[in-house]
């Protein structure tokens, strides 16, 4: 038995083992359950194609999609690369801008009162309408796609971050007042950590929407990327390629989400630990 500190954590090997076993069980469950669900859905899909005799150009069988994923892996990857770069850069830019603007909003309420309605208005323009404007403004390269991805991330993060920086418990502010903390100290030591859980909820949404933004941007004018490949496959009635492209896009989007969740779990141990 390990050294015992009075009043502190007491080493109890049996309880620790039970605790770890339970953690392993929960972790295993978290992976196993979705895998089973996906397998069941794939099977249902495959069977319905056979059962209703659906033509390959209307909807492919999962086996056909799998074949394309394997045989045309190179093409799929060369098209994923630009989309990945656009969405990651757009994600970084859009969220960074939102964090900066939220900070300004909290620092000067007047700026928020003036600018927030403008942000709402811009946000209410559908992405498919914003994209052509940006293509006209920024040309045919990666820039307009990055811009669409950034804009689509911006608003949810702005709203969440502003709330997180502002919704601080009054006792904590009073404590800092008694300690004669400067506004900068209150910001860094209270507002920023308080906003992190809010920020990460927004970032997880943004991880998926940034990919959507990049794809929509590519639809307006592009010869490369997941969006371009989707259009090309649709015009050629190449439904297995279309589905395979979508699968690749979704896997990337899910991986992006996963990375953000991982960072969240590491950074917000104090917040996530008691919610499990």
């Amino acid at each position, binding site marked *: 038995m390990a050294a015992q*500190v*009075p*009043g*502190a*954590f007491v080493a109890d090997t049996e309880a620790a083992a039970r605790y770890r076993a339970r953690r392993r069980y929960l972790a295993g469950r978290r992976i196993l359950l979705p895998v089973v669900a996906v397998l069941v859905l794939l099977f249902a899909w495959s069977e319905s194609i056979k059962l209703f005799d659906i033509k390959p150009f209307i909807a492919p069988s999962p086996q056909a999609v799998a074949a394309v994923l394997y045989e045309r892996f190179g093409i799929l990857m060369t098209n994923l690369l630009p989309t990945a770069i656009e969405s990651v850069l757009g994600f970084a830019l859009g969220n960074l801008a939102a964090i900066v603007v939220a900070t300004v909003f909290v620092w000067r309420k007047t700026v928020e009162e003036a600018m927030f309605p403008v942000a709402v208005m811009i946000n209410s323009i559908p992405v498919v309408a914003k994209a052509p404007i940006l293509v006209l403004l920024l040309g045919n390269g990666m820039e307009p796609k990055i811009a669409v991805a950034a804009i689509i991330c911006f608003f949810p993060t702005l709203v969440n971050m502003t709330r997180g920086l502002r919704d601080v*418990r009054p*006792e*904590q502010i*009073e*404590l*800092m*007042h*008694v*300690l*004669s*903390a*400067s506004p900068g*100290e209150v910001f860094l*030591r*209270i507002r920023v*950590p*308080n906003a*992190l859980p809010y920020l990460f909820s927004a970032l997880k949404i943004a991880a998926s929407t940034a990919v959507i933004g990049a794809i929509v941007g590519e639809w307006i004018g592009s010869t490369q990327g997941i969006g371009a490949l989707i259009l090309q496959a649709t015009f050629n009635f190449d439904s297995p390629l279309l589905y395979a492209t979508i699968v690749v896009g979704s896997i990337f989007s899910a991986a992006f989400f996963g990375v953000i969740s991982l960072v969240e779990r590491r950074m*917000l*141990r*104090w*917040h996530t*630990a*008691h919610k499990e």
Partner: protein
Amino acid sequence: MKQPLPEAAVFCEGVGVRFTTERGTVTALENIDLTIPRGSFLTLLGPSGCGKSTLLRVMADLIAPTGGRITVLGGTPAAARLKREIGFVFQDPALLPWRTVLDNVTLPLEVGGGKALPGARAPKELLELVGLAGWENAFPHELSGGMRQRVAIARALVSGPRLLLMDEPFGALDEITRDRLNEELLQLWETTGTTIVFVTHSIYEAAFLGQQVLLLAARPGRVRELVPVTLPMPRHLSQRETPEFTTLAGHLRRVLETC
């Protein structure tokens, strides 16, 4: 007009606090005259809502009085606060959930010029003092309510304050822990010479800790009686069984019933 005594830690003259809300004006405190000598221990007793927390908050410069005059450690409450001479234990522990226990206790040394405080104490020693050795790296959500309150007490002491304001700090604790902390608080008070103003709902706690018990009456909050406690120092829990103590507690109860 009375001059503030040089030895007064807190001096109030006609202090009043009025809150204006949509539902009208509430007089939380009215015409408070009070002198708390330096190095003394005052306990505050009174019915719920009589303005005990409000009086502490005026001393800590969290609220400005709407009337009267107050001096804290020879200057305005704001001056004492800026010099970091005030320690405050809130009714709610107000720990930062993203900081470990040790980092919560260290906070006062990180902000508001806390690095250069001459009377600063070692956070680890204070955690030991409040019985939380070994819990340095735990997060607040892993602690019980009483343990959180003890962290808050350690945090209030770390800057070595000359005036310690405590708002029902032991309200959430069991009797045994509360007794132990009461004795430890008295020891701490004797060794540091800090002036302590201590709000409680417990008649026994008020009588055991204080050199004086200030009884406040409600609606509007005003001084009802300032009762001197003549029990000898240093105090021990056994003194609570003496006839002297019982008489005192009985008197406090009778006055409190009419507040």
